[in-house]
């Protein structure tokens, strides 16, 4: 039957404001209310049973679902062009939900070695205690992912725009490798946000976010999300029994058969989130929803300021190098033009001629720019990874992750660009 009435899909800016949210059915409240409640009454015993059995949609307990959190989940699924999403208390929790749903003891996955330092520790050390083995590879050659795949490999994980190295990974090439291996490609899209890059359009199967960063955007709320494309065929091989075989933790329900293209999200929620409990608070969801409404505007300014500041620093006498994919000097500039045509994000690293000590002096010498361990705030942020986020790694790991002794990471905010440049300039004068 030909469809003549469906309107064209709304634009990104419209969806950033409206997707997932509608006026409150009970009161007509236009803004999404904060449903600050732990639990929800059942209509009767049969309704309660239907909810617990997942036979109907609705609310039981805010560890599983909450109406405010649900608005954020649907909005993120919509903005990424995915089928469904489940939120978590942090980006780390979102990664845990993802891998718990995919892996069993003895399983393996392959990850880019250029990741947020906390992810390297989570994957390499803490996950190992659960019997999950991560093989880290240099992501700059996609074939490195293929070479590390074994019969036990269940997924590939990467950051398309890597933190902190300024590296852009050839997403389409790695997606083809994952497809050939019959395993999902998981992309952490935190640094780019769906405004700058939509990994599903290049073949990714699952996206994870730390919503704490640019999505929330104001440095006020932690949060994480797992989004599924709805296109991965979990039944194409026998690698994913948690999706295709009856689940003992859920009365023998088979999630892929029952929920189809949103089965992964249902499983991550109904088992991993239920049993481990890292639920997102409704207040944090509200703050993040509010942030996302201005995501397109903020990202435009973030990348414009970052381009301006990176260009300035590249010509500064105290700076040895600038690793920003928005600069023509970057070896990743062409990949950035392909995958991040609206801008290469606003987090990048610089190398100081004065080494480790110069790094410490710069982070202590800036006045307006904040010395702290976060990215994606309205405020400009600065960090010396070697003495903070990456200090628990070995020297070799630090160098591999782009966090050597002379490296300083910047997250360029929304202040007047000249003020950011002036503050860095005066800080650099003392190095």
């Amino acid at each position, binding site marked *: *039957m030909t*469809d*003549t*009435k*469906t309107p064209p*899909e*709304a634009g990104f800016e*419209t*969806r950033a404001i*409206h*997707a*997932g949210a*509608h*006026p*409150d*059915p009970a009161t*007509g409240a*236009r803004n999404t209310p904060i449903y600050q409640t732990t639990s929800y009454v059942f209509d009767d015993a049969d*309704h309660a049973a*239907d909810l617990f*059995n*997942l*036979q*109907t*949609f*609705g*609310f039981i307990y805010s560890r599983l*679902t909450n*109406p405010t959190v*649900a*608005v954020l*989940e*649907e909005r993120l*699924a*919509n903005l990424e062009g*995915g*089928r*469904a*999403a*489940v*939120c978590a208390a942090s980006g780390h929790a979102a990664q845990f939900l993802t891998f718990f749903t995919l892996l069993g003891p003895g399983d393996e996955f392959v990850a880019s070695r250029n990741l947020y330092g906390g992810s390297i520790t989570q994957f390499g050390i803490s996950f190992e205690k659960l019997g999950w083995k991560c093989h880290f590879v240099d992501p700059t050659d996609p074939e490195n992912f293929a070479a590390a795949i074994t019969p036990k490999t269940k997924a590939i994980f990467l950051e398309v725009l890597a933190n902190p190295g300024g590296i852009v990974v050839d997403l389409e090439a790695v997606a083809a490798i994952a497809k050939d291996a019959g395993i999902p490609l998981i992309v952490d899209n935190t640094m780019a946000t769906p405004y700058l890059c939509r990994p599903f359009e290049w073949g990714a199967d699952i996206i994870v976010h730390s919503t704490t960063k640019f999505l929330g955007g104001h440095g006020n709320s932690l949060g994480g999300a797992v989004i599924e494309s709805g296109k991965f065929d979990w039944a194409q091989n026998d690698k994913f029994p948690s999706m295709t075989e*009856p689940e003992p933790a859920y*009365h*023998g*329900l*088979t999630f892929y*058969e*029952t929920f*189809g293209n*949103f089965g992964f*999200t*249902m499983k991550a*929620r109904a088992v991993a989130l239920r049993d481990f409990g890292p639920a997102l608070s409704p207040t944090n969801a509200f703050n993040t929803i509010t942030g996302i409404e201005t995501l397109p505007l903020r990202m435009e300014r973030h990348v414009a300021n970052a381009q301006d500041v990176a260009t300035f620093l590249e010509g500064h006498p105290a700076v040895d190098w600038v690793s920003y994919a928005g600069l023509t000097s970057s070896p990743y500039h062409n990949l950035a033009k392909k995958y991040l045509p609206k801008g290469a994000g606003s987090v990048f690293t610089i190398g100081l001629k004065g080494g480790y000590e110069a790094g410490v002096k710069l982070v202590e010498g800036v006045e307006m720019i904040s010395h702290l361990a976060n990215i994606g705030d309205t405020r400009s942020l600065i960090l010396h990874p070697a003495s903070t986020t990456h200090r628990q790694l070995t020297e070799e790991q630090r160098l591999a992750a782009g966090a050597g002794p002379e490296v300083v990471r910047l997250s360029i905010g929304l202040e007047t660009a000249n003020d950011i440049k002036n503050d860095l300039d005066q800080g650099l004068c003392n190095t």
Partner: protein
Amino acid sequence: MYSDDLLTTILKSVRTIAMVGASPKWVRPSNFAMKYLQGKGYRVIPVNPGQAGSEILGETVYGSLGDIADTFDMVDIFRNSEAAGPIVDEAIELAQVKGISVIWMQLGVINEEACKRAEAAGLMVIMDRCPKIEYARLFSELGWAGINTGIISSKRPKLRA
């Protein structure tokens, strides 16, 4: 692609659904859909030759569409695409006497030839969709599970019992 208006009209006008392939096992997708649709006020009559004469969710199971005693507006097909063909033909034959106006094939069930025959006979056909999921999507429940409904609207949703 089916427009939201078309699906909403169908789901608002239909009251009785014959579900071909309804399973007595509660963890099966057909049983999930039947229970959900019952909860939304639809009468769902199960059709399953292997279960004829028994009961599923309080309803007598019939061996075929022709065996059903009452009239029904819609046939919901929980069988594979090939098996859907003869079921559609039976529904076309029974359309007048039973009052059938809609044939709905579940997610993954697509039979273009059968669809053409049914449309030529004046029936409305939906393929590769689930009425439970579409109901939940169009009446503001699906987003509760973090699923992308694709709906952008500033109208206050009217939840249906």
